[in-house]
């Protein structure tokens, strides 16, 4: 399919343009809030994009994806706690740690299917959650304050809110590009084929387990990256960032935006966080409104918001 001027691509380009302009808007209006909100949105979108790789494209409903955000975040927090602020140390550690843990969790979970897979990924995430809560030397339940953001030897100052935002945005766009390459590559065909009909994949000669595991590890690593950003954004890590409801939020973003569509998780993150912001000004019980909205999208907007846009293309 060519990159024609259709509703979907225009919408995507528009989103990216709007995202790029947020710091300028905040600077000219003197209102920092949009920048704060959108920094969070972009980081959450990165996390949701990583989940989309396995959930949307690979059909692996991981209900424990927030664990990798937590691991990425804690890697930053714990190293900072010990006085290691160099991003060149912190970030590779965050990525490698989340990759290794995704490897172990994935190796076990991917032997199961369906509801069992959902439950066992949840169980592992809960385990990590409680381990973090039990780390008394690192704040236990209360979490760990990070006093200095990751240092990149003068290359980029993460304390500069604009620069930090653009770093997050660049990483999001890079991960979207990587995802796009991945899902269209031979590897991506195997992942999608395995979602579609795993038995048949094995019958035509694919050892699907190792490919699914590789996708799981890639997703976990990207989740760890989102966690590293999140820790730097809030200057704080706590077990709450891997609570199961956070994993649920990520699934909601992916489903809301459109499973297995490239920009779906970004749209989902914007929709969810914007709705959260707008609705919580109307009522404290904003989830009462969000719930039915989500139901409507799932029931009537197959493929989420991105799916609705795709249908607009076909007229």
């Amino acid at each position, binding site marked *: 399919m060519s990159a024609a001027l259709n509703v979907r691509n225009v919408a995507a380009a528009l989103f990216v343009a709007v995202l790029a302009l947020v710091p300028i808007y905040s600077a000219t209006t003197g209102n920092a809030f949009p920048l704060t909100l959108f920094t969070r949105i972009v980081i959450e979108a990165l996390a949701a994009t990583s989940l989309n790789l396995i959930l949307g494209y690979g059909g692996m409903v991981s209900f424990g994806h927030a664990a990798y955000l937590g691991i990425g975040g804690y890697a930053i927090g714990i190293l900072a706690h010990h006085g290691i602020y160099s991003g060149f140390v912190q970030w590779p550690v965050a990525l490698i740690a989340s990759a290794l843990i995704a490897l172990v969790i994935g190796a076990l979970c991917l032997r199961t299917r369906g509801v069992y897979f959902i439950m066992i990924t949840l169980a592992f995430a809960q385990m990590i959650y409680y381990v973090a809560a039990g780390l008394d030397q690192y704040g236990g339940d209360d979490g760990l304050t990070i006093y200095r953001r990751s240092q990149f030897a003068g290359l980029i100052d993460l304390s500069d809110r604009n620069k930090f935002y653009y770093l997050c945005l660049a990483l999001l766009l890079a991960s979207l590009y990587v995802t796009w390459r991945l899902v269209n590559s031979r590897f991506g065909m195997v992942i999608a084929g395995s979602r579609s009909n795993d038995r048949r994949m094995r*019958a035509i000669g694919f050892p699907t387990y190792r490919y699914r595991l590789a996708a799981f590890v890639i997703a976990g690593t990207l989740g760890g990256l989102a966690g590293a950003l999140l820790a730097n954004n809030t200057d704080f890590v706590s077990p709450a960032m891997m609570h199961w409801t956070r994993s649920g939020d990520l699934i909601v973003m992916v489903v809301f935006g459109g499973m297995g569509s490239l920009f779906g998780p970004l749209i989902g993150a914007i929709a969810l966080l914007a709705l959260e912001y707008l609705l919580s000004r109307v009522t404290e019980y904003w989830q009462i409104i969000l719930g039915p909205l989500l139901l409507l999208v799932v029931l009537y907007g197959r493929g989420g918001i991105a799916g609705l846009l795709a249908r607009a293309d076909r007229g």
Partner: protein
Amino acid sequence: MAEALLAVDCLTKRFGGILASDELSLDVCEGELHALIGPNGAGKTTLLGELAGELVADSGRIRFAGRDITALPVWRRTALGLARSFQVTSLFLDFTALDNVALAVQAHAGHSFRFWRPARDQRELRAPARTALERVGLGARADLLASRLSHGEQRQLEIAMALATAPRLMLLDEPMAGMGLEETVRMVALLRELKREFTILMVEHDMDAVFALADRITVLVYGRVIASGSPAAIRANAAVRQAYLGDAEGPVPDG
């Protein structure tokens, strides 16, 4: 005597109290179309499952192309040149017909830890896939989603996927299942074409098709081989006629 391409020796498989394969021995020679027939529940699909590697036999040996494959997983057997089509159509329904076949080609084109180049632009995958589709008569339907194809076309697609991997032995599980008369005629013509090039082990209920195509027929009843031989020999075999509910005319056509 040269060793058969596929040699099954004393295969036994039990599901609870039922013997699905009962000391089953069978061989398929290079170049033949070997048909496997028998009443429902005779263990034909079980045998194909054991041959493909989806089911593990309780005892017995399977040798393929001179190698013992009894303990190999499905994908390794496929890599050795065993291709299987399913009785119940098993496709990637949300993929196009061409993507379905290209995936089968890809399965035999080295590992797939290739993360960057778009697979749909790779001639080495698309060209053989297109050839296989044209071979089974689906050339014009290549870009349709598999779910949009008619039942008969989906069966043809199954064959194309098996074909695309240039297998040494094709295991076809009821290729005519659920087909109308016209579709069956087309499938028989296709198989007649393919048997000149491929060794085929085929399970089939359509006796006209079986007797029209097979070089050799093996009859399975309750997991046991009760007869094996040329179509003429099978047609004349009293035990075979008995097996088909004692119906002397039965599904075994005369002439």
